[in-house]
């Protein structure tokens, strides 16, 4: 399993986490290339269906990154995201996905370093967990 490289999709809020990821870039920080970002206007815009589809498509981890509580550009979108993520985590657990594959992080515009660290840690965690069971199942079928 040592050469396993997890695939992560990150839904990043335009106002904070997406900007933090940009800041990580302008500050020339470094993190593994296993993550790809999708820009959303708010973490509260992330429909559970996006997360489910991502796992179905073979992603090993999904990151949702929004503004710190109290900082949401739309007042409470991030809190709505938090509620949904909790519900989703229960659902994913039932579906047989290990805890920790869906991750919610608060990340302000200024926290480029936090974004880079989050991705680095998440990649390490997913390497521990190994490929998503959904992916293994599909590969077995194929």
């Amino acid at each position: 399993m040592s050469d396993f490289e997890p695939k992560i999709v990150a839904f990043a809020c335009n106002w904070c986490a997406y900007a933090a990821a940009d800041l990580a870039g302008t500050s020339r920080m470094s993190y593994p290339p296993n993550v790809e970002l999708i820009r959303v206007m708010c973490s509260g815009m992330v429909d559970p269906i996006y997360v489910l589809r991502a796992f179905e498509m073979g992603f090993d981890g999904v990151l949702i990154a929004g503004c710190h509580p109290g900082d949401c550009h739309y007042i409470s979108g991030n809190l709505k995201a938090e509620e949904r993520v909790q519900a989703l985590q229960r659902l994913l657990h039932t579906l047989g996905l290990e805890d920790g594959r869906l991750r919610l992080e608060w990340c302000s515009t200024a926290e480029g370093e936090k974004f880079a660290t989050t991705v680095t840690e998440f990649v390490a965690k997913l390497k521990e967990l190994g490929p998503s069971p959904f992916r293994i199942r599909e590969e077995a079928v194929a």
Partner: protein
Amino acid sequence: MNGNGYRKIGVYICHCGMNIASTVDPKKVAEYAMTLDSVAIARHYMFMCSDIGQELIENDIKELGLNRVVVASCSPRMHELTFRKVCERAGLNPYLFEMANIREQCSWVHSDSKLATEKAMALVRAAVRRVFFQEPLEARDTPVNPNALVIGGGIAGMQAALDIANAGYEVVLVERDTSLGGHAMQLSGTFPTLDRADCLISSKVEEVASHPMVKLHTYSEVEEVSGYVGNFTVKIRNKASFVDGQRCTVCMLCSDVCPVSVPSEFELGLAQRKAIYAPHSSAVPARLTVDSQACQHFEGDQCHACQEVCPTQAIDFSQKDTFIEEKVGAIIAAPGYDLLPRERISMYPDDPDIIDGLQFERILSYSGPTLGEIRRPSDGKVPKQIVFIQCVGSCDPEHGVPYCSRVCCMYVAKQALIYRQVVPEGQAYVFYTDIRSDAKGFEEFVQGVMAGGSVLYLRGGVSKVFRDGDKIKVWGVDTLVGQEIEISADLVVLALPMVPRPGTNELVRKLNIMSDKYGFLSEAHIKLRPVESLTAGIYLAGAAQWPRDLPDTIASASATAAKALTLISKGKVVLEATVASVDESYCLGCGRCEEICEFHAPKISKNGLPLPTASINEVLCKGCGACAVSCPTGAITIKHFTREEILAEVEALAGV
């Protein structure tokens, strides 16, 4: 051409000089893009944002009949607008454009060329798939109120208000204290010229207070802000002062007879004021205020001393807070700063002769409690040995704040110089870590003070400060000569850092803007949009955004005025087209969207249909997507962030 099926997508990969090309291979990415579905042309070029790069896209749109465009380059936060305009110029709807961020989120954060190139390909693939589903959208106009609200009557707020008012537009200025001027009114001389601050500032104060285009609300607070760019509604609380401002002649008889004394806020505790008071002798507007927290009348003891003596019957204990509503087009937030509270730095004991820099300004000021004579607070003696300590709590993440407070090096040099002018036989010491003097005339000023020989600069820290009889003992070290230092001082002045004023957080919440981790107001972009907040129509001025001295504050305030004028002088504002829309055929009229929306955009009504359905007020909608996710039937979509578009991105990134 934007109808079903037929798509002709152009893909443009930017080298950004070597910024992208040193890690990502743009040629390979372009070759790969050519293999993707519906891609008609893929090119790579040194700088896509250059005139030549832009023309390349423009010509392709016209000549090849492209109906979708993808640019893979820097962050969309940088150049999305640039390329949208390119599309528009070529006759293509700007929302048929998508950007892949292969610089900030790829080439700059990854070093492995192969992996970075593969990731860039995936990002381009996702952008191509997404743009396939994008629809043309039209931006909307809304009228703008031709006036502005300025929050804060310090030097920043006053300058912004004056610039706007002088341009012929009305300003509503809200100041929470009883008079204008803010901290700037407390200063003594200003560096580097030693001009008297209160003279400089009071001319501005007079100009603001008498300006016909300025509606002044002192002793008032912004209670609530609603609406959006160009159309804000602001509820303002006028706090009860218990004195009729029209009648009060500031004769001060009331203050003379008032039996209650409390520490004066304006004098920073170095003097007392009465419960009925004016903060200082040149306060504008000139009227007294009853401090209901201190006044005995409100504690039920029925003291009427002031009322009895007032020759104009101006005092009215029955006054209540009043509320007014103003409709404004733009908002400038300038709530100002305070110094880091002394208590936060535990190594300095609570002692009347250990004061902060702002308190020493009052001692130096001709209008201060000692009328410009330098006397120490404990016993009124003229201090003969005075120690200034810089960076007390600044550049110090362990005890205070990690940032540099920017003004202390300059004001300490100024204070030491003025002290030596007033007390020629005295000795001044300055403990410093670094001298930062990076503005016009600053370095020359500090060097002048250091070289003049009248002030001894010691490079190093202080380990202990404690009371020893009549003296304050300061133990420190001079790291340049490697020597321990002990000074028996009469007065110690601490250069504490500027921090946001208490209450700034609350204002941030009311305005729906952002603050950084220290509580300073956050700009929309630290380099490119330093004057704007992230909320359209709200601008940031002065030291509430970052430690600033007077010229920097005034420059930032004038910049916000220019921004506000740009908005309010046009008469209308273009709103984002990316809002929610409802497909009535799926809508059950359940009302969840109405419940979840923070901005009251969705409404359930019959709309002429047989059953009630949701409709969206597009002016109120901010396009956050909360309603779309909560909709049980998927009847609501956010334009430009549709399920189809985002799922296309997910699938494309997965490589499917």
